[in-house]
């Protein structure tokens, strides 16, 4: 049962937010405002070790907190990241670092040089940045230290990171933390008679001829990449890393006593020389980045590393860059006869080894291709397929009908286009926000150009001078000067520009937009086809398509009189139980006339839907149009003359109101359907030929269609693996309409690219318009349970199984295998990196001001903001959701209740509209229109520039 909470927040929860490194960023000290910074565990350790202080640092060092960063390089971590929708290495993900490191969100200047993120979950993760309370005199005065930022967390606050997460459960197989036991385990109480007595270390061995110690954190800057051996992680997980910490144990004292060493072993040279790097061998000096607390680290075996660090870019040579050769004698000096511990040199050396070798695909599994879109070279000899999964373009010899090359490009390539002379090909990389430029002669990428957010469609003008790139998420079109390889301007598009086509005369470029414009609450969609005059590079017309959304593929008729485009018509305003005029989603074709007028017809027939029409191509003679149905593995053959006759024989009212919804008309112009391999998406026709090519995206093949017989005559294997993994099966289920009622739509119909189509649905059969809910993204969804705006579904399997069965799948629910695979795939849908703040980047001044507002505790006039009304109380990092339901005053008369799930805020800038019913078109409106009584955070005292700053900060999540 879901526990409902109404604006009740554990007051200690906020404290946790603060200690996550994201708390208030300035402290008032004696009237002056200062900004505390992170100093790192090595600074803390100077006072917080030794018997007099309860050996606190040593206790931490032996805990899993100290290994938290290193754990990110384990194969399990990469799998967890994948299931969290993280498309980068865990060490590069703010989401992962938020709980596996300290000060993950801090700016570079907020970390002292002594701080190393590689030290994992350090003291300051829980106790707050320490620069202002680290002074011994302050620290000994608890009240003063608290004023200066010291935090003392309670166990409940650990839940921000340790609350169950689906991704971790799935990989670690239920190895959940026993919080109470863990809490006891990490206890490091300060003794009642505590004294700030620093450990008294003996003099360091010194040699001016030797390089300096730089510390393991410095080594990790280059040696933490799991694809290159994960040296840092491998070391951190060994006993070497705890070698100094163990000296604080009673066992260490026993051993020391047996050796005739009295006192604290941590202060004795006899012990330190084998339990630390810095005492193990002489060095010219020890940099501040190194310390005894890292135990036996890289430099114990490889020697002081300053010289190596300076010359690390040069070819490896142990002599040239100061590294020592590690061999058996090097180990034996400490391990031979060490306290009676058995030491088998070959075995133990192998155990500690960390060879330099790429392990990139160690856990990756089969690498699929997933061709999305195709383009034929102007000479008709080659076919290029943009392959989303393999980050490549596969080159096919059209005469031989076989793959001849594969060219690596950027992340999630989506579309491909050729220059008119065929010498250059362009590929949009939607994950990277770039376009790859390929020299077709050498088949190499010669340049990569940054464009807008999530580029999809591409088209080159007739002269080959300008490339138009449709940026789906930034909702604009980059115009690239091909010669200069630079973006020269950005045209505004509709919402979600998707595909582009240029007329044969080269004058007009028509662009589809996959999302509807914002429309008044509970009114039908209105989508746009953007028409660009290619001779001027300007938008000249925005043709509106009423009642439609999901506009994807587009193609011009050779006559240039009209273009055809695919569309959906979502019936999102009535409950999904109403099977009226085609139930929930009908699928069709639009006709854009040169004057901007638009016609719509359906490709569905009664009982036989044509789900997810995705791309369209017109044959060279203009007689036929071929349309792919990605969710039913078919291509429809449309007789263009029949379609035009249908339209011309109808009067204006019929064309506007009847044909767009008429399920009985497709039979009049659809000649036949052609079966294809799984999930046909892009389709193209080779110029001057009678062949069409279809990208079967989830089969890694290209189907070849003969345009005389309209038969599939061949398939071209792009070289993907034959095995169908669980993830691949789930991806197929996600893109298939086979299980939905009337086989009308797939999961992907409402979640293009795993994201949102921006509509608000009336799902439940509780009356028209009652409880409308905005669609939500699937990107990074797994760890944000419970699901749905009401927070009623505790798991994805319930959401996609019994829940969907009520409305979508009906009598054909997913099988257990399908459901399991679907859930797995959904979790892997990547959430692209944030575009407004690269990892580790400094905040802009506006973002920095916005951060202050996000974490503020008082209003502009000094009133205390109640804990439950602070932004960070419910939207705390790293997930930016407390995963609970709250009443934030957004209930409308048609809502049965006002408690709604706290949404996560990853890439919140690209998931409009907002709030549970999608009523806020922009982030600004959440507070300018829909927070009149300060129930959704205290915001009404804010000035306009403060709200702008807050939004700039939110965009960095």
């Amino acid at each position: 049962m879901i526990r409902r909470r109404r604006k009740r927040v554990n007051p200690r929860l906020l404290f946790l937010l603060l200690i996550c490194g994201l708390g208030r960023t300035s402290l008032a000290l004696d009237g002056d405002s200062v900004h505390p910074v992170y100093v790192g565990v090595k600074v803390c350790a100077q006072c917080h070790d030794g018997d007099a202080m309860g050996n606190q640092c040593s206790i931490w060092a032996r805990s899993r907190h100290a290994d938290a960063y290193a754990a990110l390089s384990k194969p399990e971590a990469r799998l967890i990241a994948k299931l969290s929708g993280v498309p980068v290495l865990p060490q590069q993900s703010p989401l992962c670092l938020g709980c596996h490191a300290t000060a993950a969100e801090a700016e570079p200047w907020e970390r002292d040089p002594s701080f190393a993120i590689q030290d994992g979950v350090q003291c300051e993760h829980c106790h707050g940045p320490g620069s202002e309370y680290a002074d011994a005199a302050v620290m000994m005065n608890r009240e003063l230290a608290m004023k200066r930022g010291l935090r003392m967390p309670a166990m409940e606050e650990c839940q921000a990171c340790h609350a169950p997460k689906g991704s971790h459960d799935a990989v670690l197989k239920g190895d959940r933390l026993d919080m109470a036991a863990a809490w006891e385990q990490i206890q490091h109480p300060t003794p009642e008679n505590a004294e700030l007595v620093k450990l008294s270390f003996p003099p360091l061995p010194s040699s001016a001829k030797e390089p300096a110690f730089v510390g393991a954190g410095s080594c990790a800057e280059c040696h933490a990449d799991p694809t290159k051996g994960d040296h840092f992680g491998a070391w951190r997980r060994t006993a070497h890393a705890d070698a100094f910490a163990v000296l604080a144990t009673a066992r260490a004292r026993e051993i020391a006593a047996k050796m005739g060493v009295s006192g604290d072993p941590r202060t004795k040279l006899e012990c330190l020389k084998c339990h630390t790097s810095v005492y193990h061998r002489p060095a010219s000096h020890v940099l501040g980045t190194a310390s005894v607390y890292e135990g036996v680290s890289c430099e114990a075996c490889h020697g002081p590393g300053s010289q190596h660090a300076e010359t690390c870019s040069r070819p490896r040579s142990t002599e040239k860059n100061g590294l020592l050769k590690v061999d058996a004698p090097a180990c034996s000096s400490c391990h031979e006869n060490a306290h009676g511990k058995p030491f088998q040199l070959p075995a133990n050396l192998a155990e500690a080894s960390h060879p330099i070798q790429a392990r990139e695909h160690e856990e990756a599994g089969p690498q699929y291709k997933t061709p999305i879109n195709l383009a034929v070279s102007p000479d008709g000899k080659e076919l290029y397929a943009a392959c989303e999964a393999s980050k490549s373009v596969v080159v096919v010899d059209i005469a031989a009908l076989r793959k001849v090359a594969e060219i690596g490009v950027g992340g999630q390539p989506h579309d491909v286009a050729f220059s008119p002379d065929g010498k250059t090909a362009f590929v949009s990389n939607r994950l990277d926000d770039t376009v790859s430029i390929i020299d077709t002669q050498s088949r190499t990428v010669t340049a990569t150009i940054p464009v807008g957010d999530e580029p999809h469609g591409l088209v080159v003008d007739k002269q080959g001078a300008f490339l138009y790139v449709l940026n789906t998420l930034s909702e604009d079109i980059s115009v690239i000067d091909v010669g200069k390889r630079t973006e020269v301007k950005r045209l505004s598009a509709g919402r979600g520009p998707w595909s582009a086509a240029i007329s044969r005369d080269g004058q007009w470029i028509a662009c589809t937009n996959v999302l509807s414009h914002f429309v008044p609450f509970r009114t039908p969609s209105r989508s746009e086809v953007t028409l660009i005059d290619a001779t001027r590079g300007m938008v000249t017309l925005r043709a509106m398509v009423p009642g439609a959304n999901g506009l994807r593929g587009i193609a011009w008729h050779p006559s240039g009189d009209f273009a055809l485009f695919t569309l959906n018509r979502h019936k999102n305003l009535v409950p999904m139980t109403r099977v009226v005029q085609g139930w929930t989603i009908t699928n069709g074709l639009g006709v854009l006339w040169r004057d901007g007028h638009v016609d719509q017809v359906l490709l569905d027939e009664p009982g036989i839907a044509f789900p997810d029409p995705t791309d369209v191509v017109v044959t060279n003679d203009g007689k036929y149009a071929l349309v792919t149905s990605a969710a039913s593995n078919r291509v429809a053959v449309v007789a263009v003359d029949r379609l035009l006759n249908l339209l011309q024989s109808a009067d204006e009212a019929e064309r506007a109101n009847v044909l767009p919804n008429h399920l009985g008309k497709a039979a009049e112009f659809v000649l036949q359907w052609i079966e294809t391999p799984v999930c046909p998406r892009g389709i193209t026709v080779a110029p001057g030929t009678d062949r069409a090519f279809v990208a079967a995206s989830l089969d890694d093949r290209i189907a070849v269609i003969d345009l005389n017989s309209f038969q599939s005559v061949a398939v071209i294997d792009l070289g993907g693996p034959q095995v169908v993994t669980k993830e691949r099966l789930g991806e197929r289920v996600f893109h298939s309409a086979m299980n939905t009622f009337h086989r009308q739509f797939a999961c992907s119909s409402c979640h293009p690219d795993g994201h949102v189509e921006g509509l608000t649905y009336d799902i439940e059969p509780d009356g028209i318009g009652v409880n409308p809910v905005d669609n939500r993204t699937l990107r990074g969804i797994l760890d944000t349970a419970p699901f749905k705006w009401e927070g009623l579904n505790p798991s994805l399997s319930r959401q996609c199984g019994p829940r969907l069965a009520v409305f979508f799948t009906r009598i054909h629910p997913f099988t257990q295998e399908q459901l399991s695979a679907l859930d797995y795939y959904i979790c892997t849908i990547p959430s692209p990196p944030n575009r407004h703040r690269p990892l580790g980047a400094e905040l802009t001044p506006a973002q920095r001001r916005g951060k202050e507002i996000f974490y503020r505790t008082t209003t502009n006039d000094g009133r205390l903001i109640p804990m439950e009304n602070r932004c960070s109380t419910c939207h705390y990092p790293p997930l930016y959701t407390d995963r609970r339901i709250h009443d934030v005053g957004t209930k409308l008369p048609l809502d049965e209740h006002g408690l709604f799930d706290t949404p996560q805020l990853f890439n919140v800038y690209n998931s409009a509209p907002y709030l549970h019913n999608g009523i806020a078109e922009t982030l600004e409106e959440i507070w300018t229109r829909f927070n009149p009584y300060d129930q959704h955070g205290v915001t009404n005292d804010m000035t306009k520039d403060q709200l702008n700053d807050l939004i700039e900060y939110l965009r960095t999540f």
Partner: protein
Amino acid sequence: MTSNTAGYFASFIMLMWVAVQGCPEYAIADDSGAGGKNSSLPALAFGQSVDGISDEDLPYVYTQWENYTVEDGLPNDHLFCVKATPDVIWIGSENGLARLDKKSGKIQSWNEEDGLPWRAITSIDVDPKTGDVWLGLFGGGLARFSGGRFEHFHQLNSGLVNDVVYGVAVENNHIWCATTAGASRYDVITGKWDIYTEKNAPMEEIWNYNVTYAPSVNKVFLAVWGSGCLEFDVATEKWKDYIDPDKEMEIDLYRDDGIIHVITTAASFADGALWVSAYFGCCRYDGRHWRGFYAHETGLPSDFTNFLKARSANEAWFCTDKGAGVVADYATDTYVAYYRNSDNSGGVAKIYRQGRLLREVPLEVSIAHNFMIGVDFDGDDVWLATAHGLSHGIGKGYYPGVKRAPQQPQTVAAASSTSADSK
């Protein structure tokens, strides 16, 4: 804002509305000079040489005027702004947007029923790269008109600081708005909004009347009520302010010591010279010297200047409450003032040098109204947004500066009879 500030603004609004509701036509009082207020101009002998310039060295005078009103398709005759582009003229009115196709002469208009987000359009700028038209809406925020669709930005759905937008300017990928509560800058690529007020710009007052961008120096200029003219260097994001050094609100105590008054209405930069208008006259700054222009010294129609635009460092047009004033040749201190008769469509253009009337050129068809608030250049032509329609000055044979062509005014005047008042 002080009550004094509010009072000045109220005055401005009142004057503007009085004007658009029916400002009396300027009457050419007599043949002694400028007439009316200008009768006290210094009496220099006609034909006297000034600094080596002969009275026969005359500026170009626009004698062919076409006027457009609601009868020609404008949505309203009370015009607030005009923007000329190579193909079309954009016109902002009290109640709608209009586009005049220069080739066909046809006017298309949009009002709120056509999707225009707000009826009153106070400023227009066009992005030269994208062709998008940006509209400053008086009380309605900002709109982008692109491909036939209006996109509306206002203080509730965007980061725009205030919905009373007086001026709009396109600067690279930014859209600047001069509003009653500061300036806003919108980045069309990133979607980021910046706000400039007294917190981060040298604005003693935040009532921004006008904004313009000078590509040649990559700078933005703001005309601010009570804060003079502010210069924003796009590259360095640094501000520089030009305020009245004598700090006198009512008079220009020390002439040419700086900007003439801190209450400014517009700024325009051309060829290295900054021109600034105020309700108390106009001024020009060449980077070293300031020069003020007052009606009583120059022959310009009025000091009450709603707007100005510079054509060059040598020529600028002033939109006043009593006619169009032109610094026709700064180098020789030569001016032209255009007036419309109160009782017919005709009028007169008066040429002055150093305040001395050189010539009067009768105009069979003159400007549409003597109260005007917008001007733009279109090659050799000029367009004026007046309180009673749009005026198009046809610049056939236009030349900058002055020219020894003594027959030109008379000849052109004779030829002007071909124009019709309303096209």
